[in-house]
Structures are given as structure tokens and as C-alpha cells.
């Protein structure tokens, strides 16, 4: 039997600071790895090569190095509660990748009166919840005041809980409903107590992809503009990439680079969150014959790792275990990820598309997953302040 090579202890094991834990096997990755080690920005072509390669571990090692330089062995998590106020959505037919939105007269259509929102939010009172995550459909009738009242009401009842609410798509929709501007909508929400904005609705920015899966949804430039305005108002936001449907690797990279450009300009993004598409019960899943066939674990890890490598101006990359399973999310902590979505109470959107992950997760379980991966769990608030 050949030696298992224990004499060549890795620097990590001997305690010294490390470079890349794995050297590239794919020669195409060698110059990219050199850039990463030297702290240089990688290019669009590099990004595509990182997706195309089958040298998964080398991609992971580059992302891991960038992550450890920024975050050390810390892994952040936050206890949050999802509130999905309505599933009525004027884009219910347009966004063929979604099974959540329905038309207003659909049998399963719902819109929560504010009292019901507050009632659901009461669950947070004697729990570790630090954040409300509020997203929903584009309701044709709900006015801006519904949302400002909601934010104000939640803040009154739960002054210490952070409100992260409304995607750029919902902001732009409210501006149309109110015949106002996105900037004014944002100002009204900030005035009501909005703290941060989630990163949903980005999908894939490529016009070709949007034409295929989300025609008439807010276009890339407008999505970016809403986030630019939020950043200018001092509202940190997240950003996402919905992968695993019809997009190409080049589409993914171009999307990530648009986020990088805005971050260069404003510095207002907190976290990048790749979202794995769930095909079940969606029109797109049926037409692609993909129902029951999720993204693979390798692709999930690559989406996270390549995002980490390209987004050299981001502090954080988050794995969304609701979509990729807790087991895969734990592995992601060695592939450049420093944020594990917290306990999530009452998630509805992904679960209507067939997610069979648990509806919530105990903080103890999250801490165990992080420790078991050899990392240090750090409970955070929405602004990444440590609560430990």
C-alpha cells in the first residue's frame, strides 16, 4: 500500500496560515489560482472557466482562501422568521419558474390582513428571532400604505427585531401602483422603519433568460437601480442568482459581474445568495421535463464558490439551506461560504415548489453543523454584528 503521506502535514494542520488548500489539477485554473492568491480580481473568462471545470476541489479551495482571508473561521447565522403576506401576483403566469404566485381569484389565493401578520409575528416574541424576512407576490391592489403600516406595526410591537422587507421587484411594483418613483417608495418604507432589503427577484439578469422565464419582470438595469437607490439611502441589501434552469455559465458570470460593478460603486450589498431553482409544480419544470430533478450538489457548491471568487468586494456569501438541504449547506462552509441561513420559521415560497427540507431548523442544530465543520459559529443580527 502506498503511503498516505502523513509526513507532509498541511500548513493548516501545523497551525501556520495557509494558502490554497488544494492546488489546481485543471491547467486552465492555474493562472486563476495565481490571481486569487495574489489578491487580484478575476475576469469574466476566468469565471466561465471556473464553472466549466470539473476540478471542483480547486474551485472550492480558491473560494475557501478568499473566505478565510475575510472571515477567518467564523460562520454567521441569524434566527429569522419569514412572513409572506400575499401569494397573489400579477406575474403568476409570467414567471414560469415559480409555483407560489397565483391569480387574485384563485382558490388558494390569500392576502393577510395586517392583524394576521401581527399575529404570525407574535411567534417571534419569546424566541431567538432577530429578523423578519418579508416578501410576497405583486398584488395588483395592495397600496404602499399596507406595507408601511405593516413595517410600522411590526416595529411598534417588536422594536428590537430587524425588518428586512420587499424585493426590488416589489418596490418597483409599488411605485407603479402609486404612480410614484422607486426612490419615493423606498423613502416611505425607510421612514416606516425598514432596515434592510432582501435580494430576491434578480433571477438571472440576461435579457435572453428573462425573456424565457420571467418576461415582463423588472429588467436588470431597473433591479440594479432600485438597489442603487436603497444603498444611497443607507439601506444595505442582499442579492441573489436563481440558477439551474435555462441559463448558461456565461449568463451566470455576467449576472454576478453586474452585482460586482454596483458593489464597486456603492458598497451597499451585504451578502450574495445563490438560489437553486426548484422545478416541481412549475410551468417551466413541466416544459423542461425537470420535475423531480433538482440541481446537483456539485453545481450548488460551484454557484457558491464561483460567486465568492468573483465577488472580491463582498464580505459575505450565504448558503440557503431551504433550497439545497442542510447537509449540502454544511459542506458549503468549506467552499467559500461564511453565512448559514438561520432558523427559518414559516417559509412558503420554496416549499410550494417541492422543497422537502424542514420548515425550520433549531439554532442548536445550526451550531452543531458549523462546529462539526471545524468552524466557529457567530450569531449575528441583520447587519452582521456579532451577538455572541
Amino acid at each position, binding site marked *: 500500500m502506498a503511503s*498516505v503521506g*502523513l509526513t507532509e502535514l498541511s500548513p493548516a494542520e501545523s497551525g501556520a496560515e495557509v494558502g490554497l*488548500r488544494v492546488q489546481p489539477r485543471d491547467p486552465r485554473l492555474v493562472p486563476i489560482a495565481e490571481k486569487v492568491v495574489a489578491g487580484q480580481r478575476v475576469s469574466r473568462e476566468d469565471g466561465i472557466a471556473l464553472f466549466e471545470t470539473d476540478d471542483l476541489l480547486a474551485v472550492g479551495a480558491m473560494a475557501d482562501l478568499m473566505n478565510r482571508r475575510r472571515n477567518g473561521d467564523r460562520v454567521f447565522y441569524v434566527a429569522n422568521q419569514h412572513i409572506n403576506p400575499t401569494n397573489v401576483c400579477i406575474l403568476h403566469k409570467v414567471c414560469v419558474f415559480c409555483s407560489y404566485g397565483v391569480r387574485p381569484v384563485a382558490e388558494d389565493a390569500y392576502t393577510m390582513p395586517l392583524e394576521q401578520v401581527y399575529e404570525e409575528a407574535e411567534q417571534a416574541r419569546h424566541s431567538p428571532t432577530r429578523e423578519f424576512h418579508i416578501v410576497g407576490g405583486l398584488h395588483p391592489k395592495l397600496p404602499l400604505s399596507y406595507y408601511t403600516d405593516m413595517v410600522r406595526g411590526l416595529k411598534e410591537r417588536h422594536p428590537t427585531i430587524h425588518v428586512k422587507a420587499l424585493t426590488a421587484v416589489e418596490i418597483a411594483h409599488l411605485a407603479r401602483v402609486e404612480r410614484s418613483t422607486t426612490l419615493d417608495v423606498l423613502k416611505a418604507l425607510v421612514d416606516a422603519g425598514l432596515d434592510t432589503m432582501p435580494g430576491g427577484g434578480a433571477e438571472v439578469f440576461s435579457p435572453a433568460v428573462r425573456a424565457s422565464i420571467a418576461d415582463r419582470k423588472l429588467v436588470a438595469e431597473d433591479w440594479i437601480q432600485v438597489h442603487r437607490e436603497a444603498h444611497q439611502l443607507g439601506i444595505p441589501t442582499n442579492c441573489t442568482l436563481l440558477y439551474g434552469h435555462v441559463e448558461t455559465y456565461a449568463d451566470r458570470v455576467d449576472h454576478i459581474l453586474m452585482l460586482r460593478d454596483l458593489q464597486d460603486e456603492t458598497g451597499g450589498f451585504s451578502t450574495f445568495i445563490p438560489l437553486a431553482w426548484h422545478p416541481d409544480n412549475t410551468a417551466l419544470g413541466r416544459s423542461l421535463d425537470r420535475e423531480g430533478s433538482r440541481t446537483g450538489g*456539485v453545481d450548488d457548491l460551484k454557484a457558491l464558490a464561483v460567486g465568492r471568487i468573483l465577488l472580491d468586494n463582498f464580505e459575505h456569501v450565504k448558503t440557503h439551506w431551504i433550497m439545497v438541504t442542510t*447537509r449540502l449547506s454544511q459542506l458549503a462552509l468549506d467552499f467559500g461560504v461564511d453565512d448559514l441561513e438561520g432558523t427559518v420559521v414559516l417559509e412558503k415560497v420554496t416549499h410550494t415548489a417541492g422543497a422537502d427540507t424542514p420548515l425550520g431548523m433549531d439554532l442548536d442544530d445550526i451550531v452543531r453543523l458549523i462546529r*462539526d465543520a471545524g468552524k466557529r459559529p457567530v450569531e449575528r443580527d441583520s447587519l452582521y454584528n456579532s451577538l455572541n
Partner: protein
Amino acid sequence: MTQGAVLDRPISPVRPDEVEELTRLFDLPLLELGARASGRMREQSPDGNVSYILDRNINYTNVCITDCSFCAFYRRPGDGEAYVLSNEEIGAKIDEAREIGAVQILMQGGHNPYLRLEYYTDLLRFIKQEHPIHVHGFSASELDIIARVEKKSIPAVLAALMEAGLDSVPGAGAEILVDDVRTEIAKKKIGTDRWLDIHRAAHEGGLLTTATMMFGAGESRADRIEHMIRIRDLQAETGGFTAFIPWTLQPEGTDMAGAEEATATEYLKTVAVSRLVIGNIQNFQVSYVTQGPKVAQVALHFGCNDFGSLMMEENVVSATGIDFIMPKEEIVKLIEEAGYNAVSRYQDYSPVDPDLDWYCGCGVCRARKPA
């Protein structure tokens, strides 16, 4: 109880310093461990192939007297849910499996003391005559109870089964091959030496076998290393193991419910360490039934080169509430997306020959073909 000549050879003790040294592999960073293990895998399988087998599980009985605390499948004799399948039921299951292209059945069951050797030999002859297919069946602990009930030696039982149609032996029942651990989780099951003796006897009798390891059952990492060393040493002696198959205990529905399952990180580390420690086995199998398709796919970059079996009608792990059974197309897609060539195989790991004019292309089955 007759245990046969195989017991005359002493089991070599495991050296504590070797266990200690190899256990330190677990301290390597996950990615580095993966790179070492997949480097070893590419040395051993340079063609970039990842194989899988189309087969069906047939659990001929759930009657069992062994009461393992990690098992949700078994029923005691006399239980209202106890069953033994008839030959006709088994034949019908084989026909269904062959319709989807299965090249073998994996036949395993409880330790049912009411079944005599004749039941097994009759069943095997019936299968080979009426529904011919490769029979991968009867793990060491089942062979043990047959031998004890019949008061026959293991080599004699194996010879009778092989003559009747048994083609290879699965590696189940190994759990952790450290007697202190076995006493905790499977007190009534055969001990380490007996498990190894039975596999040695199978190899010497011309049957290929696999070896499993069930971990996350409260054992230490050093216990896992000891298990790997035992397998490696027997392989050095016989060369009869085709594959090593590590999987994690699924506590739900068992007497160990509430125990914490080994995490995905621990699974990948264990898989990679086993590829490095057991350098003389060619194939390492992912356990997608326990890990789910995502982690199983990632394991192909941590030293595994086989996706295992289609698991049509898996009953044992699913009794714990885990249900990850996948169609062939999904397995092929996962292998190819991970960057490998997907190859359908026989039990001896040779590739399936679609033009073969016999039910199976493995060496044992080919030898059964009339001239």
C-alpha cells in the same frame, strides 16, 4: 457450533500506533483530504469512469432474532407484520426488475431461524431455472445463522449455496468491526472475527464480496480506522473484496431514535479517509440512500467511483423514513454533471455488455453458462 477450518488462522492484531497515525487523517482540512482521496482514485481508476448497477433489492424475510438497536426493518418471529416471501413473489419481482434492465438482485433478509438451508438452495435453483439473474445475496450474518441452524461449517454452507446459484455475497452486517462497539449496538450479531472469517471463506470459495461500514453509531474515529485496517488486511490476504461501502446510521424509527446522525462533513471525511487507508480495494461506493443525491454527487470528488445500485424497492433504510430512490436517468445525470463517464456495470465491476447472450457477464455467472 462448527466454525470450520477458517478459524485456525489467527486474526492479526491491529497495531495501536498505526490506528493513531491513520486517525490523524481526519484532522486534515476537508478539501485537502478530498484532493488526496480523489488523487488516489484517479491512480486506481484513470479512465474517469464512475459506475452504477441496475438491480433490485429483494428482502425475502423481515423475521429476525438479532434485535439490532439501529434497525427499523426487522420484526420478531410471530409479529403481525412478519413475512417470508414465496418463491413466486420473488420470481415476479425479478421479472419486473429485468424489464427495467436490472442485471442482478440483491437478496437480503433478517436472521430467520425457521428457514433451513434447503429453503435457500431451493429458492436459488428456482431463480436460476425460472427467472435467471445474478444473485448477490445473503450477508455474513445470514450465512452465520444458516450454518448454526444446520450445524454445518461456513465453507459447506457457501458451497451448497453457490452450487444452487449464489453468485456473490454482499458486505452488510459489518457495521463497525470492533467488538466493543458491536456489543453496544448489535450485541446478538456475529463478532468481528466471525464476519471476517465468513468473507475469507467466501473469497476462498470463489465468491466475490463487498465490505460495508455503518458509522455514526457512537463509535470513535479510531474505531472506524480499525475497521478499515481489518478490511485492508483481509483484502491483502484474499483480494476478494470488490468494493468498500461506507454509510451512516439513520437513527429515526430505531431504538437509537434521537441520536445525532453523522453530518455530511463527517461522511465525506470518512469516505476520503477510507480510500486512503484501504489502498488495495479498487472501488468505493457512495451511499445516496443515506446521504441524498447532492452529497452523494459531491462524494465523487472525495474518492468514490461508484454510485451504487438503483435500489429498486429498497426497504431497510426507507424503514427509517429516508427515501432517496432515484431513476437511472437521474443517476447518470448526476455522474456526468460531476465530470465523469457513467458506466453501467455487473457485480464484478466489469461494464455491462448489451450484446451478451447470457443473463450476466460476471465471471461466476459466465461459468454457469452451458457450453
